[in-house]
């Protein structure tokens, strides 16, 4: 085995602008898709508990399809499949500062739609976990369903939603590599591009692995911090998180990151 250490260190510590762009795109894709996916998930979760049967059925169908088919298939279907059928073509959009390529839009759409289905179940469970009596009390005070959802249920549900949401974003960071299949130049596709020119596969894939490990580790820290911010009041006046300890210490961060 030959491991080209200078090559490895060079690509790890002095990434080319192509590589940095790939990194930025990976993070942007993940963050935007997670945000849209969470919003879709909230909408679908509320639709699942709607009093209108048709709305319930639509949400159930959406979740069934998106969770029942591979993400990779969804990505190709949305970008290549729809275009081949002359249904939807994603054109580059100039938003002033930069251009959002068609395949990036399709990638975000696929990742968001897929994420929304998983988030819907997570948010629904969070909503269901809030004591039913508080909803009744809010109703008895004259709150409409919308108001009581916004003011009473969701603020409490969010505590139960945040830990699995963090987990979903960890998965999202890694799943974003799948959009390389439609030519989005994120970290994996950039790695493949460099690989085809250098054939240093072992080194390059070690580097990209370390980059993802860094991203997910940093996210683990952030997640811990968010969980502490949204902790619940407790009997003795301190706050507790779902996972127990509330202190923002290095040890807790380490536990969060390696959990």
């Amino acid at each position, binding site marked *: 085995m030959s491991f080209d250490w200078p090559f490895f260190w060079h690509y790890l510590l002095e990434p080319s602008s192509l590589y940095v762009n790939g990194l930025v795109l990976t993070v942007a894709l993940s963050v935007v898709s997670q945000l849209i996916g969470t919003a879709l998930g909230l909408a679908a979760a509320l639709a699942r508990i709607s009093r209108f049967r048709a709305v319930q059925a639509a949400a159930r169908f959406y979740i069934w399809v998106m969770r029942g088919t591979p993400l990779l298939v969804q990505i190709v279907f949305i970008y290549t499949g729809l275009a081949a059928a002359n249904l939807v073509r994603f054109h580059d959009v100039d938003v002033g500062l930069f251009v959002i390529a068609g395949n990036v839009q399709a990638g975000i759409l696929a990742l968001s739609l897929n994420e929304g289905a998983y988030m819907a179940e997570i948010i629904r469970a969070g909503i269901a976990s809030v*004591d039913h*009596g*508080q909803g*009744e*009390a*809010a*109703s*008895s*005070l*004259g*709150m*409409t*369903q919308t*108001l009581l959802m916004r*003011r*009473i249920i969701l*603020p*409490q549900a969010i505590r139960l939603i945040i830990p699995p949401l963090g987990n979903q974003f960890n998965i999202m960071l890694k799943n974003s590599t799948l959009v390389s299949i439609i030519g989005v130049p994120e970290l994996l596709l950039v790695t493949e591009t460099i690989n085809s020119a250098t054939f240093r596969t072992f080194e390059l894939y070690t580097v990209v692995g370390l980059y993802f490990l860094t991203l997910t580790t940093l996210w683990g820290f952030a997640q811990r911090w968010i969980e502490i911010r949204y902790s*619940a*009041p*407790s*009997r*003795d*006046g301190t706050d507790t998180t779902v996972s127990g300890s509330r202190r923002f210490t290095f040890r807790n961060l380490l536990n969060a990151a390696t959990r």
Partner: protein
Amino acid sequence: MGQIDDTLSPDTVIPPADPNVLVEAINVHKWFGTSKVLDGVYLSVRRGETVVIIGPSGSGKTTFVRCLNHLEAIQRGVVRVNGQFIGYRERNGRMVPDRPRNIALQRRDVGMVFQRFNLFAHMTALENIIEAPVHVRGVARTEAEATARALLARVGLSGRENAYPVQLSGGQQQRVAIARALAMRPTVMLFDEPTSALDPEMVGEVLAVIRELAKDGMTMVIVTHEMEFARDVADRVVVMDKGVIVESGTPQHVFVESQHPRLRAFLAKTRLHVAE
């Protein structure tokens, strides 16, 4: 909730609204699935009156009080509060489910206190109390806070404004819940077994608050197992059994004079003949 639309059946005669009557139940029927919980309940509560409902468990008294603000749908009969039908509206001579928005509007004027307090766990005592005045009635926050502080003082909880529900005892939580309901300035207060979930030593402090309300002339419907309290506070005691009202009258009448066999059997079981 609410696909039943035939509440105005031929045997329900709805008299015109009497301005002195605040809460009115006319021939209220309710089923849970195939089991009948309310079998034609009639009740009128006059302005300023305190009506206490007693009866064995399973008699339907909790269900009945929940029907009064449409937390439970009813299948026949009507409930009228402040001269308005609750939960349903008349259309072509039939009662149909009202729009959720209207039901929410009607509930603003009907305060409710629950057995399990149901305080908003993510809010302090003060926040619990100002929540509905600010977000439902649109009262200015500073004004709502002043009212809330006064109400907390009234229920004996000055200084606990910033306590979260978990940091309060059951009795304190229930008193906050009463203050929360009062903050909406309801025309009537409903109590669903307000002391049943409390440790015995905390029952007194909650009942004292309710006694004060009765003294101040608040219109109230109270479901309770506290017989002594019922005797003291009630203008009228209503006895329910098997989904109907079997006896109704002054505490003296119900606890002492009435010879209704089901009532006597129930009172014997509660071991509290208030007669002595």
